[in-house]
């Protein structure tokens, strides 16, 4: 009976739909000066359905016949309500706005008007991402969102970038946010196995991105359940627009250099080395004066055996391993279609040569997206995005083949070339012996290869059916395919490959993953005027990741540099293939209730099951609640003219983290073949060994987050801003519980123990101090402060992790080092404090101990950006400063580079050694230099911490849009030229820091490829 009633209801509704009349409106959005405004939102008043303007400012929209007006909005312009007076509208937007109140924001499983958000969501427009000289979009997010930290450890083109949203909420699992591209959960795990740094996100051309939403609190992320704890970044790619087919072309070329060099702390020259050698030998008593010291330096038997004429060579190794790198990109896109079908197609080429030798990245990409309106109740969208990239990256850290290590460690009296100009190795003077030592980086770069090639496809099919007027069904299947092949070749003549007669290693990694989502969306008004309504979504999602990896290695290569692949290896050494996979299933639901846009209450729920967890704890429940009060919508506020927006929102929720877990960590297993990196095979027969203790109780980490925020706009949003406070408590953190090494499991056991808290404040303030008809000045400033604290750990014991010692009550990244007390002015001895009280000093390293110092952490206290944009007619000048304050950066190789004599003749030293103590009374930070080292002064201590504060001119752009009246004749609708500088200036407050102050999440330098600054010039043409 009920079924029949429903049937009848549907029938009636369908009839009413059939009889509905529509009307097609076209139009053009411009600014006050008549320049087209692209990407303006065009909405049917009172609804969230609509379109956006294209690059020429044009739009086409089909509206119900009874529609009276459209609402048109865009960033930087006042939102306008336009009455439909004809089928062809021209809308001139007025400047003077800041925040865009009716802007639509993409959120999980849908979109919402910005003022109705209950969660903390920040958006980044595609226009802020395009034409930047970065190989991946995550690098462009630095400074763009308050509370989003984006930092790289390596400056290599194509390198990975670390992103943290609202601090670090995980210790051993992933602390990175979830990326969702066009509704599909994207994989950002690096698939390479033999590449120092790589980035799956470099497969996306930032030019194809329409917008990015950064979901920061539980109200926004809880519907992603067990993957939402670290925040979510939603990427929406460009879609087609109907009307005239439009073509856009852009190109830019530029050049890169090292972003940061410190004149105060570089490598020593040969002459300076001599000064230091003499001091060392005299201070140790080996020599009485400079002449005797010089004799010892060159004495091959009882001295150090430097060539007699060593002073005649002075190689600047930094110059040898770095260069000016070229950079270029070309992008072409096409968009068009008709009422029923629209498309967007694009192609691009990007190439960047790093400033360090043997580093480069290039990418070809293409994308196609098609939207088809099959009927007035059924929509299809399908998209495919493909790219192929190739990257060359050297090793980092302490490997002999690392060119950055070479730049610091190689003796300046060595030379990379023989006198005949050929590359030097195996020389009689043993500068570059074939067997060992820091290699000649030029030979490594010229003779060896370390390439990673990645091919990526992302595709999706989305169907939306309006089953009833209020009920919509969405089904979406999306998939990603990655194919990464790496080839390493090390020549048989010199370097790492020499001992094996040359060797090669190839790896092929494939990943296929899919997300299949089905959900119903029921939106129903509960009053007559339709401004009180609820919106409920419920659905099901299944996802899987399937990986496959193949590795092969071989050695003994022919004596040539021409044959570099395994096909030419005489002796195979490695053969390895393995599939791995994980699966997730979920049911989810969201519910919103809205009263006159004044009060909005939201809730979300998700139940997740994941294959990576223990049999006892495979499923988990996650939820959030949120509410917003738009004070400025209240009738009593209508007369307050100076305040146009005041919104208070709050949310609380529980999310989970299952990212970064091993797929099979819960199982007690025996591994075959290679276990913990070491072969168990013996005499060519298979071996096995326990590789996992197993924990059937293993489950996700959880996050309980509270957020309260206020959004405000004054003077018609000439001044606007957002302030958020959050308290994010991460529980059940994956921890490695130490077992007694006598158990044979020195690596310990994974359990869910530990809590970390992140509390913080984020502030965004923007405005337009000056707005005239032809001139505007835009200012935007954001700042984030996060306070991280370890709440509890396994048996309340600190966990040592490199230079950190995770300790309850302290910042997770507080340094745990010997407290350096400077240099004794009386005798030049190194001094340490004996303990945390800093009362007593000692020159005996055994009398000091490592101390946890919560005031010195690797986590910045404040970071954000300050952006100014000046626009005059078609000319715009914008500058973004990125700043980062309050952290300390650790020089993990300082022990070698400032060793006061210990590594004097082995590794070159930093120029700060020239400031060493010389005579009683000298006040200096460098102890006396003594042959063989000065009382362990080189040992790790806080002396190798540098202040990590810096301000960087992240972006400086001068652009000119050539007036349409000049370009029209050439059928050009839009012509824009620009010059851009990236990382042009870097100011570090610590004048001694020897490396670029951007050192990744752990603020630790590891002799990575130098970060770069670039100057690019480009042109954008639209037809």
């Amino acid at each position, binding site marked *: 009976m009920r079924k029949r009633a429903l049937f009848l209801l549907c*029938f009636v509704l369908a009839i009413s739909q059939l009889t509905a009349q529509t009307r097609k409106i076209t139009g053009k959005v411009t600014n006050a000066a008549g320049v087209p405004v692209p990407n303006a939102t065009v909405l049917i008043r009172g609804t969230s359905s609509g379109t956006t303007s294209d690059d020429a400012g044009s739009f086409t929209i089909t509206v119900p016949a009874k529609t009276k007006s459209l609402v048109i909005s865009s960033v930087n312009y006042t939102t306008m309500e336009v009455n439909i007076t004809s089928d062809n509208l021209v809308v001139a937007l007025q400047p003077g706005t800041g925040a865009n109140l009716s802007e639509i924001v993409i959120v999980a499983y849908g979109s919402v008007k910005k003022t109705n958000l209950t969660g903390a969501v920040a958006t980044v427009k595609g226009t802020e991402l395009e034409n930047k000289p970065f190989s991946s979009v995550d690098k462009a997010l630095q400074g763009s969102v308050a509370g989003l930290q984006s930092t790289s450890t390596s400056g290599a083109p194509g390198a990975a970038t670390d992103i943290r949203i609202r601090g670090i909420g995980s210790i051993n699992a992933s602390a990175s946010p979830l990326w969702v591209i066009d509704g599909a959960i994207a994989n950002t795990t690096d698939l390479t196995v033999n590449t120092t740094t790589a980035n799956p996100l470099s497969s996306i051309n930032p030019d194809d991105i329409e917008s990015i939403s950064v979901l920061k609190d539980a109200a926004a992320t809880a519907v992603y359940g067990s993957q939402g704890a670290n925040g979510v970044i939603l990427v929406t790619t460009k879609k087609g627009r109907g009307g005239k087919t439009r073509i856009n072309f852009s190109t830019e070329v530029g050049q890169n250099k090292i972003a940061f060099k410190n004149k105060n702390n570089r490598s020593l020259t040969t002459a300076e080395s001599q000064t230091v050698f003499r001091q060392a030998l005299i201070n140790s008593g080996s020599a009485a004066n400079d002449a005797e010291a010089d004799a010892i330096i060159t004495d091959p038997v009882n001295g150090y055996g430097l060539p007699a004429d060593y002073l005649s060579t002075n190689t600047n190794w930094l110059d040898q391993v770095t260069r000016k790198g070229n950079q270029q990109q070309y992008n072409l896109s096409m968009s068009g279609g008709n009422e029923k079908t629209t498309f967007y197609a694009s192609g691009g080429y990007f190439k960047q040569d790093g400033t360090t030798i043997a580093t480069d990245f290039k990418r070809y990409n293409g994308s196609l997206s098609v939207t088809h309106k099959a009927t007035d109740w059924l929509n299809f969208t399908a998209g495919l995005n493909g790219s192929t990239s190739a990257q060359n990256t050297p090793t980092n850290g302490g490997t002999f083949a690392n060119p950055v290590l070479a730049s610091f460690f190689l003796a300046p009296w060595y030379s990379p070339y023989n006198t005949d100009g050929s590359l030097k190795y195996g020389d009689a003077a043993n500068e570059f012996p074939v067997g060992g030592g820091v290699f000649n980086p030029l030979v490594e770069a010229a003779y060896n290869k370390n390439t990673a090639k990645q091919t990526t496809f992302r595709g999706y099919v989305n169907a939306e059916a309006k089953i009833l007027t209020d009920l919509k069904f969405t089904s979406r299947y999306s998939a990603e395919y990655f194919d990464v092949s790496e080839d390493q070749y090390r020549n048989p003549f010199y370097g790492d490959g020499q001992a094996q007669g040359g060797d090669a290693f190839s790896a092929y990694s494939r990943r296929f993953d899919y997300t299949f989502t089905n959900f119903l969306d029921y939106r129903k008004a509960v009053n007559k005027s339709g401004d009180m309504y609820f919106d409920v979504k419920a659905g099901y999602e299944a996802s899987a990741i399937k990986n496959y990896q193949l590795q092969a290695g071989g050695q003994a290569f022919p004596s040539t540099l021409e044959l570099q692949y395994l096909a030419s290896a005489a002796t195979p050494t490695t053969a390895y293939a393995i599939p791995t996979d994980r699966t997730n299933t979920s049911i989810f639901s969201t519910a919103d209730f809205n009263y006159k846009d004044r009060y909005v209450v939201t809730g979300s729920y998700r139940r997740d099951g994941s294959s990576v967890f223990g049999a006892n704890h495979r499923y988990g429940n996650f939820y959030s609640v949120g509410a917003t009060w738009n004070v400025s919508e209240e009738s009593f506020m209508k007369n307050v003219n100076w305040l146009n927006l005041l919104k208070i929102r709050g949310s609380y929720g529980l999310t989970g983290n299952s990212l970064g877990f091993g797929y099979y960590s819960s199982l007690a297993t025996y591994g075959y073949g290679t276990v913990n990196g*070491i072969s168990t095979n013996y005499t060519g027969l298979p071996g*096995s060994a326990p590789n996992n203790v197993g924990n059937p109780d293993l489950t996700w980490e959880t996050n309980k987050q509270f957020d309260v925020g206020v959004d405000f706009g004054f003077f018609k949003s000439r001044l606007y801003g957002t302030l958020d406070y959050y308290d994010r408590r991460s529980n059940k953190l994956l921890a490695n519980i130490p077992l007694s090494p006598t158990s044979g499991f020195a690596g310990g056991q994974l359990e869910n123990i530990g809590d970390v808290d992140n509390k913080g404040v984020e502030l965004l303030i923007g405005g337009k101090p000056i707005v005239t008809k032809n001139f505007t000045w835009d200012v935007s400033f954001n700042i984030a402060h996060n306070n991280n604290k370890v709440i509890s750990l396994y048996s309340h014991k600190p966990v040592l992790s490199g230079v950190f010692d995770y300790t309850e009550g302290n910042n997770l990244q507080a340094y745990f080092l010997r407290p350096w007390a400077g240099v004794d002015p009386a005798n030049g001895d190194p001094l340490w404090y004996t303990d945390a009280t800093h009362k007593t000093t000692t020159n005996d390293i055994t009398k000091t101990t490592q101390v946890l110092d919560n005031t010195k952490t690797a986590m910045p206290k404040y970071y954000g950006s300050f952006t100014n944009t000046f626009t005059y007619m078609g000319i715009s000048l914008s500058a973004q400063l990125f700043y980062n304050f309050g952290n300390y950066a650790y020089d993990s190789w300082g022990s070698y580079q400032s060793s006061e004599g210990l590594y004097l003749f082995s590794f070159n030293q930093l120029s700060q050694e020239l400031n060493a103590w010389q005579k009683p009374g000298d006040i200096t930070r460098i102890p006396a230099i003594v042959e063989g080292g000065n009382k362990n002064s080189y040992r790790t201590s806080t002396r190798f911490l540098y202040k990590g504060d810096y301000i960087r001119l992240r972006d400086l752009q001068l652009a000119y849009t050539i007036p349409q009246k000049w370009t029209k004749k050439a059928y050009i609708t839009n012509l824009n030229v620009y010059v851009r500088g990236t990382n042009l200036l870097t100011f570090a407050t610590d004048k001694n820091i020897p490396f670029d102050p951007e050192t990744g999440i752990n603020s630790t330098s590891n002799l990575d490829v130098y970060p770069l600054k670039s100057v690019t010039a480009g042109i954008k043409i639209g037809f």
Partner: protein
Amino acid sequence: MKRIRNKFSIAVLSIALMMAGCKKSYLDKAPSDSLLSDDALSTVSGLQAALNGAYSNMRSSTLFGRDFPVIGDLQADNTFVETKNSGRYLTQYNYSVTVNDGVVSEMWNNAYQTILRVNRIIESTLTGSDVDNVKAQAYAIRALLYFKLVNIYAKPYTDDPSALGVPLVLKYDPFLYPGRSTIKEVYTQMVTDLTTAFSTAPDYSSSVVLSKYAIEGLLARVYFYMGDNVNAKKAAVDVINNGGFKLVTAAGYKAYWGNPAIGSDKLETLFEVDADVINNNGFDDLGGIYNNGYQDIYASSQLVALYNATDIRTSVLLPGTTKSGAAAVLINKYPNAENADRDNLKVMRLSEVYLIAAEASLPGNEADGLKYLNALVAQRDASKVYASSGATLLTDIITERRKELAFEGDRYYDLNRLKRDVVRVANAGAIPAGTANVNLTVPYSSTKRIAPIPQGETNVNKNISTQQNPGY
């Protein structure tokens, strides 16, 4: 009408799709390179694979692959580190080891990891002669590792058997936090393990498998270190007389050390750990620390002076210079560090059994002492025949041990077992450079003569945290 049906079919289809994914098995995943532990050990071939995993772990550069043999000479007076070095083993050489020393903790961790691997075999409930064969080797490996552990981390048995040894872990329990057993308990366990192993051990098949007489050789060594000369000699003589092994001759000496292949002819090697083209330590191969690689460590002038020019053992000593240019003697006992097939790692040779038999004959039976000593020396230096007696004979045997087993990690434990001082003379080109390069004596009484219990253990294991060795 038709359209409505379409819409319903979509709704029905969607619900069906939702249900389709709900199968429980969708979330059951297992790795493709590992088996659940119980399945892995459920067959004899599974046990054999687990045994291979234990053998191969001994190849690690942290165990017999480098650390064990290197420190046994370097901490004594057989070798030195040159000034231009790669930073390895410096703390061992200059007696500045601390509780967080890398070598000290990696030896501990990996020795116990190997013990875990054999314990799980020993605990198997499978039966049959094949199983017994596998278990015998597992017992022998366990004894071999406890022998190294107790000699590195505890005082010699000859000093005080009731002093603290090392923790005895004899069963699989990852949540066990054992304290240290006494030295005597550890030695008693080794004797039990080796005796059990000997009774069911496989006959000799190759040099890289622990066969019956290799195990008896290890038993002789254990008794010998306990000062139980009667049992030591009995076992040693049984190996010599009944094992069927023969000493490598002077003529074959150089070829023997140059050969990286597995032996099957019962020549000299009772047991060695296999290292081959694929499974080896790469740059961290034992030979590379001496020659053909890092080349950090050289033969001491004291040791070199002990050999006559006619001694065939000088054929593996290469006069040359350090990388810094000082005249020095390079060690070439493991010449295959840069070749495809790497040197196998000698654990027990027949020559050592002769030396045990000789020394264990004293003080009661000097004739036997001379017999076994001269039998070996005849194959090394034809010009030399010992006829000494009393204390001189003991000294001669100790000296021949030093010469024969040099660079095999024996010397330091001889000095410990005999409670003698380490007496070094300065070597040209050694660290520390310059005027600090002087003679050095480390008395037997020095607390630095034994390694500390690693900090990684004392931090985690409260039962051992109060049992640290004095001086650390």
